[in-house]
């Protein structure tokens, strides 16, 4: 309970408001399946992006390959269910295991790279996954993709007639991912990741085991992404190489966080709430807009937001700038809830 109070305090009560709002959403919109579907997808991508935030936002190792974990979650679940008739929940669990193993293997290679080289390597690797899943079609369904069998209402198999259930599941997933990143941020790991982002040599000179810390960060950050992929699979019922590992998903996860504010606790939440609905609402398959229109608007919104503040929405000041407190007081922005150190300053955690 103590931790919950602290979470609410350190997020300025915003957490409580958001929680109530989000939890009650289906009660207002329960009739319209479209809104429900948009909200569910928002929460799923929010979770993936929250995961991304751990290694890339806090740790500064910008990954354009989190789609690898998202896709592995989705494909593992699907393959086990379609080919081996394994229980869906077990499939979700194994999806996480596979993603974690891959995170260790890929991290061991790529985390030795600095800055942009890491980003480019992860980007290339996710495209490798996309091509390989397309090529080895016996297993993965190739370019056509995999479709889950229709099971109707089978709660034991992660299949629900009532789509509100998926909404709740996605919400729990996003909430867990949020709490997890919050816990990371105020932990030793979070502090050390932020130090690595700021200056890896200086962090090492302070005794930070940089490689191990980054690898731990990558593994933790792969888990929400993999879970998001599994839940996406169960919800949508279909996956193909491009919607699992493709450049669009790869960059989407990162862009959500960047628009909200990479490295800020609330960044991925804000980013997902803005970008995912935008993309879905204007989607041509569901409306009269021409193909491409939704992404044109999407791109323009991203451009405008980052043009105004390249560090994302959570870094914007909104003209509420208070007079800078005299020396010795809390840093500007928001009151520091825990004076005793490792709570991140407003700039980092917003």
């Amino acid at each position, binding site marked *: 309970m103590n931790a919950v109070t602290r979470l609410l305090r350190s997020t300025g009560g915003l957490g409580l408001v958001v929680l109530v709002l989000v939890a009650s959403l289906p009660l207002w919109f329960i009739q319209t399946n479209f809104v429900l579907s948009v909200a569910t997808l928002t929460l799923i991508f929010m979770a993936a992006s929250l995961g991304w935030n751990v290694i890339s936002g806090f740790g*500064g190792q*910008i990954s354009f390959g989190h789609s690898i974990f998202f896709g592995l979650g989705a494909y593992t679940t699907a393959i086990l269910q379609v080919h081996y008739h394994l229980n869906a929940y077990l499939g979700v669990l194994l999806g996480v295991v596979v993603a974690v193993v891959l995170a260790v293997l890929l991290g061991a*290679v*790529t985390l*030795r*790279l*600095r800055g*942009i*080289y890491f*980003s*480019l*390597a992860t*980007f*290339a*690797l996710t*495209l*490798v996954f996309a*091509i*390989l899943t*397309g*090529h080895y079609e016996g297993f993965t369904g190739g370019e056509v993709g995999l479709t889950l069998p229709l099971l109707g209402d089978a709660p034991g198999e992660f299949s629900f007639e009532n789509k509100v259930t998926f909404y709740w599941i996605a919400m729990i997933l996003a909430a867990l991912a949020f709490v997890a990143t919050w816990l990371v941020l105020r932990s030793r790991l979070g502090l050390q990741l932020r130090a690595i*982002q700021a200056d890896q040599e200086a962090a090492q000179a302070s005794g930070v085991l940089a490689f191990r810390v980054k690898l731990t960060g990558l593994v933790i950050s792969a888990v929400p992404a993999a879970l998001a992929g599994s839940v996406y699979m169960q919800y949508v019922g279909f996956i193909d190489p491009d919607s699992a590992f493709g*450049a669009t998903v790869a*960059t989407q996860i*990162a*862009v959500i966080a*960047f*628009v909200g504010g*990479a490295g800020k606790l609330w960044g991925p939440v804000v980013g997902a709430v803005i970008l995912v609905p935008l993309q879905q609402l204007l989607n041509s398959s569901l409306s009269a807009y*021409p*193909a*491409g*229109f939704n*992404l*044109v608007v*999407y*791109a*323009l919104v*991203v*451009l405008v937001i*980052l*043009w105004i*503040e*390249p*560090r994302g929405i959570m870094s914007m000041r909104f003209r509420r700038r208070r007079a800078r407190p005299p020396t010795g007081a809390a840093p500007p922005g928001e009151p520091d809830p825990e004076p005793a150190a490792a709570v991140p300053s407003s700039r980092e955690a917003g």
Partner: protein
Amino acid sequence: MTTLVQTLVSGILVGGLYGLFSSGLTLIFGITRVINFAHGDFVTLGMYGAVLLFASAGLSPLIGIVPVAIISFVLGLIVYRVIVRRTLSVKGISAVDAQHGQLVLTLAVSILISNVLLMIFGPSPQAVQGVLPAVYDVFGVYIAQARLVSFVIALVVFLLLYLALQRTLYGKAIRATVDDRDMASMVGVDPDKVYAVSFSVGIMLTGVAGCVLATYYPVTPTTGAGFLIIAFVTVVMGGLGNVVGAFVAGLLVGIIQQVTAIYVAVDLQDVGLFLVFVLVLVLRPQGILSGRRASA
């Protein structure tokens, strides 16, 4: 044996164009430190430029180079002035935050370009047909005229760039900035101008590469995504910021791609490339064609 020679020749011919648009990317990175995620889409724009000029005015892409180059230069200037420069002018922003901002902004530009093209031209492939249709048979190795001419143009344009960098005042300013930006600004090089010129020239080279590529390669709005990653691979192999390295690496990338396509599987041609890329990154991050040791 003939197959091997054929494969190598095909690889080199397409590699010349890779080299040209990659030298544009590396020029941009070397000077401005911007990772241009929209780079592939400027190739696409060049290709659509060629298609449009051919379809509407009957203009051959070989002549279309001129208007495409001018338009690309202007577009590059706009992207630099309006978007990239913005991130540098935000108060209190760190260099890393600015670079990440540019990364996402150019990514948004990429999404914007490809989807505007999708709205205008639709998803089906378009091509410039019937220009340079001949195929030469050289001792059993087939060489398409379009590929050969494109390669020659790429080579000539690249040599012009190289001469410009070596001989002109701007070229010298640009090279000075690559070597040591602080020193360059101390001797009176205006960094903002150098940034703007090199960004625009980089985009111009890319547009030109796209324009000639259209003579034998069909274009769709999403073609650029593939070129983007090819350009990244090429630039890293050549050593980030190394223009000559990028061009040579372009040839190498073309060859790797063709060899994988012929000897492994066509749809895996990029896997070989990407795996070589990751290997290069891990083993020799300074690039395989760069003599310099990676600085700490």
